[in-house]
């Protein structure tokens, strides 16, 4: 009985801030302005503009996730081999930017990448041609990787730190060289960390509209931007909700795919 009482606040939180909003989105997404049931909001994903935004979002967030993984794994490996003190200092350095406001960090990149920004300033001082850096898919990927890299490093670092040194020693003792130790022992044992890292990078990257707003100008529309505009400028909540539902379905599909590789069930929602 007591235990049920204790869970009360959490239950109310979940109902008030998760279930009801979700139900509202489903309701808006499946109705038109007069309140009648319709699938047109959801199906409008197939219009050229929306489909293009969705595919671009999927592509960019996938690429960012892969880049984050490629950067984070070696870093986590280096951290593992360092002593505890040294390792946690490097982790601290990586987390430090997260203490600053997300918008500020992204705006800082805007200043760096602008046409008359810091990087182009340095290039012209060196008599090199200016580069069109801002408002490109590359700038958006840079913004995503920069902002989400810590979310990939930390879970991988955590699982790698939990692997007993003697497990690695045992593999070497049985004849494995460093590459074989990595492929046969460390990688398989760190899959739970990789899975939660992918989840924590891919999902926010797929739904972001801030990064593409600031670093992509208004030229590059991601699905997040489209949904945001329906809610703010277009005032068509029904269409925005419908597209959100589609995005949720894509996230659920990718989670399910990832969960297949995560036998231990750590890190994913499914």
């Amino acid at each position, binding site marked *: 009985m007591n235990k049920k009482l204790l869970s009360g606040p959490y239950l109310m939180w979940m109902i008030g801030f998760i279930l009801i909003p979700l139900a509202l989105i489903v309701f808006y997404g499946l109705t038109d302005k007069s309140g009648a049931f319709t699938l047109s909001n959801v199906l409008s994903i197939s219009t050229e503009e929306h489909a293009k935004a969705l595919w671009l979002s999927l592509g960019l967030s996938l690429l960012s996730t892969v880049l984050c993984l490629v950067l984070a794994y070696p870093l986590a490996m280096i951290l593992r081999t360092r002593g505890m003190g040294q390792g946690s200092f490097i982790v601290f350095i990586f987390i430090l930017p997260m203490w600053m406001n997300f918008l500020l960090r992204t705006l800082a990149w805007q200043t760096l990448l602008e046409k008359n920004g810091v990087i182009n300033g340095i290039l012209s001082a060196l008599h090199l041609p200016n580069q069109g850096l801002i408002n490109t898919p590359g700038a958006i990927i840079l913004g995503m990787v920069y902002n989400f890299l810590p979310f990939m490093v930390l879970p991988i670092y955590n699982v790698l730190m939990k692997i007993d040194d003697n*497990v690695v*020693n*045992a593999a070497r*003792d049985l004849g494995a060289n460093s590459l074989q130790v990595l492929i*046969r022992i460390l990688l398989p044992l760190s899959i739970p960390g990789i899975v939660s890292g992918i989840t924590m990078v891919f999902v926010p990257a797929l739904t972001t509209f801030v990064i593409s707003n600031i670093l992509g100008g208004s030229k590059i529309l991601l699905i997040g931007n489209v949904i945001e505009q329906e809610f703010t400028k277009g005032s068509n909540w029904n269409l925005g909700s419908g597209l959100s539902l589609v995005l949720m379905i894509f996230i659920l599909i990718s989670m399910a795919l990832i969960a297949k590789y995560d036998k231990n069930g750590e890190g994913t929602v499914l």
Partner: protein
Amino acid sequence: MGQSLIDLRNISKSFDGTMVLDDLNLSVKENTFVTLLGPSGCGKTTTLRIIGGFESPSKGEVIFDGQNITNLPPNKRQLNTVFQKYALFTHMSIAENIAFGLKIKNKSKSYIQDKIKYALKLVNLDGFENRSVSSLSGGQQQRIAIARAIVNEPRVLLLDEPLGALDLKLRQDMQYELIRLKNELGITFIYVTHDQEEALTMSDTIVVMNQGYIQQMGSPENIYNEPENAFVADFIGESNIVPGIMLRDELVEIFGAKFACVDKGFGSNAPVDVVIRPEDIDLVAPENGSLEGVVTHLIFKGVHYEMEVTSPDGFEWLVHSTDLFPVGQKVGIHVDPFDIQIMNKPASEDEEAVGVNE
């Protein structure tokens, strides 16, 4: 047999300026069970890790079968290790764990299958191929760790306190199991433990270590009956260590009483340490003993009574006997000459640490 398989020559090792091993020399013969025994921090595990290749010595050489392997990485050494907490690969089945070393060496599938079967039979776990690591008890995991090591047919098996995490009964069973394995495989075992009983039960040779030095090396009987210094006497089994004066060959004076012994060559009137095992003290009528005392404590231990006998000088003798002498009774202490072990008195603590390895 007879040939030394592993030679450690002048091995020194320090971590962050702290000396862990100092000029250690050790030679291990083929097909023997050698135990490195000592309290924690004595350097026994470091010695094993140097042999395994997981640490490199600051100074000195590791010779394996005539070859200098000091700088050879562990994966190139013809020996395998069983680690303290098993270190099994939790993401693999039991069969995959055992097959790991063989797959790395690109052995054929049928060879690997045969080997897995053979190894599981050897450690009495037939049919465990497809079990997961987490479904096994500690003792079973330890057997798998041993199976995983021996399928590679190492010439030496290194064991780092492999029974440390097991309960007493299981530990005793595994001791017999290990002796059987060693005899069946006919390979060299180098075993690290802090448990003197484990060492006495299994070893052909015991190497007693303390503070980075070898204190004494010899057969279990030799170590137990003829400890060379107070550390060894104290660490191996229970003992009474008392100061004495060697009056002449075969006669020692303890607390003013004269005891006949069998030791020679200490000079005359030389101060020595005398070791007498509790089970070697015979309690007799006061007039028949060399030294008088009063029983001050009595505990029933099952196999024997454990008594404390205080002699007039205040020393409390630990005595194990199947005969009961009640508290307060006056008794005589008698010791047979060959049950008295005489040791040189160390001049200083440093010398005590260096022991026989100076």
